[in-house]
């Protein structure tokens, strides 16, 4: 491995920072989905990484079918992930009670194994390269270069967060979700149906996950195992940000994206991968309930 000299080149640093932010935003999409599901149902969806993989595979199939057009293919991927989410909720998650945390993990772990290996069996484990209408073109500012797919992926993530904020803060749909997260009994008493709200939360979270998968597909290679590594990081982010805390998860995700890219730019790759774990242990030592915990699910 070619050793880069340790004197910090500002352009290189800016490049790393920009890459870190785009990567962090995509991590955030996954972590926010997990935080949303945990906030409403008090469970963890282990199969979330496989839903991301389903989104990425849907993107890789939809792109050639739609003449490499980026946005329609992304919409198709999101819809595909949301349908999977709805099916998973109705068949499995709806049977779980909020206190059955371990059971939720083991059931969704079983599901994740099945989905991963069925996809591997059908489409082989070979990585797929995904081409879009933007190809590998990018924006060039001075000597800093970022591909369009990264820029658009990051913008799509920001757009999704804005939409999520409006949805949770200003619609009846979102208010019901926050009500369940904050006080289940009181929400029941004012006539909110936990089952409907939980289903909405799962479908919304899987939609975000499909978006992340679709945005990642042209940035990195698509493999059946791509969700596994990302989901472990997303779990750690949910802990760092405080379980069920959405802005906490976003901040933690962007922070992790930056730290990983900075470390990856200067140190061995093992340190980059280990960063998330070290960060999590340190946070748990200092703030056992996560960095940003302030009670139940918050949106702002």
């Amino acid at each position: 491995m070619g050793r880069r000299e340790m004197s910090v080149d500002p352009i290189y640093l800016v490049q790393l920072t920009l890459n870190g932010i785009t990567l962090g935003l995509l991590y955030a999409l996954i972590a926010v989905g997990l935080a949303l599901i945990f906030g409403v149902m008090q469970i963890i969806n282990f199969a979330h990484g496989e839903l991301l993989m389903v989104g990425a595979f849907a993107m890789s199939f939809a792109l050639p079918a739609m003449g490499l057009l980026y946005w329609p293919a992304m919409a198709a991927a999101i819809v595909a992930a949301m349908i999977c989410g709805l099916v998973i909720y109705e068949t499995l998650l709806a049977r779980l009670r909020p206190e059955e945390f371990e059971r939720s993990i083991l059931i969704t772990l079983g599901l994740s194994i099945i989905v991963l290996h069925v996809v591997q069996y059908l489409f082989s484990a070979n990585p797929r390269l995904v081409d879009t209408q933007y190809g590998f073109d990018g924006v060039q500012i001075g000597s800093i270069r970022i591909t369009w797919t990264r820029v658009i992926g990051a913008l799509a993530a920001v757009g999704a967060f804005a939409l999520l904020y409006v949805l949770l803060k200003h619609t009846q749909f979102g208010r019901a979700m926050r009500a369940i997260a904050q006080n289940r009994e009181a929400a029941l008493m004012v006539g909110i149906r936990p089952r409907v709200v939980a289903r909405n939360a799962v479908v919304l979270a899987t939609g975000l996950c499909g978006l992340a998968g679709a945005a990642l597909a042209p940035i990195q290679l698509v493999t059946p195992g791509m969700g596994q590594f990302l989901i472990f990081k997303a779990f750690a982010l949910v802990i760092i940000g405080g379980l069920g805390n959405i802005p906490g998860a976003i901040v933690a995700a962007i922070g992790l994206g930056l730290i990983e890219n900075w470390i990856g730019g200067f140190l061995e790759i093992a340190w980059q991968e280990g960063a998330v774990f070290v960060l999590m242990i340190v946070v748990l030592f200092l703030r056992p309930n996560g960095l940003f915990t302030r009670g139940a699910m918050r949106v702002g």
Partner: protein
Amino acid sequence: MKATLIAAAALAFGALPWLTDSNYILGIAVSAAIYTVAAAALNLIYGYTGLLSFAQLGFWGIGGYASALTVMTFGGTFWQGLVWAGLINAALALVIGYPTLRTGRHAFVIVTLTFALLVTLIARDWVDLTRGPLGIPGLPAPSLFGFEFRTTSRFYWIAWAYAVLALAFLYALCTSRIGRTLVAIKQNEPLVRAQGISPMPYKLAAFAVSAAITGIAGGIFAFHLKIIDPLFLDFYYMQTFLIMVIIGGAGSFWGVVIAGVALSALPELLRFSSDFRMIIYGFVLLIAMLVMPGGLAGWFGQRRLARMRAALQ
């Protein structure tokens, strides 16, 4: 009666090398012994204490690498390697367990999961130490007082002896006052506190014991395979241990031991391709958790209760 039965079963398993010459069957028997111990260790932390730990996979891998590196890089013996495998894992369990167990069960599950992944990544990426994806091949056969455990049938003695020792220790632990305290912590932690017992040392000790036993099991298994590489940390092993605990019945000592022996033999007999085997494992896990979360032992227990109720009426 029960004790005689158990001793007879243990001796019968010990006599296996005289009954067969087949390296294939003895190889499965080595796996069965090692997997059963690892499953019983997971049962201690998950079944008895109620803490779902995915870190077992990491301990398994660290145990394998620690014993392999002791022999190949640091010039120690196999037995010293096993001691290191146990000590390093127990120490790591304390370091991870202390900050994590303060926060509650949810964080514990996720931190242990991330730890398992981290160990996999380190095994792959810290090439200077672990030789990365190439792995460390050619692990030599262990020897004791000049007796070399060269063949599979001789190596089986090591696995068998370890399984008997570890299971006896775990059985003694689980049926002692400590074991009952662990079950009480699982069932009602505030009540345990109210009795004047601090749960933290118990939980930490259970985690460390479970880590050390899993690590030594990993160390023995690595020398059975005679090679260690990052595939040793495949999530497949974790799933195998989990399925043994869940099918056998979390919190039931003999349920898990029987499930461990039975489920080690079964996939070998059925001979599926690896993808297909994983799909079946996934379905088994899913259906077991949906239909009988107490495992076979829980199911039999419920039937016995139902019979007793019926007899009362």
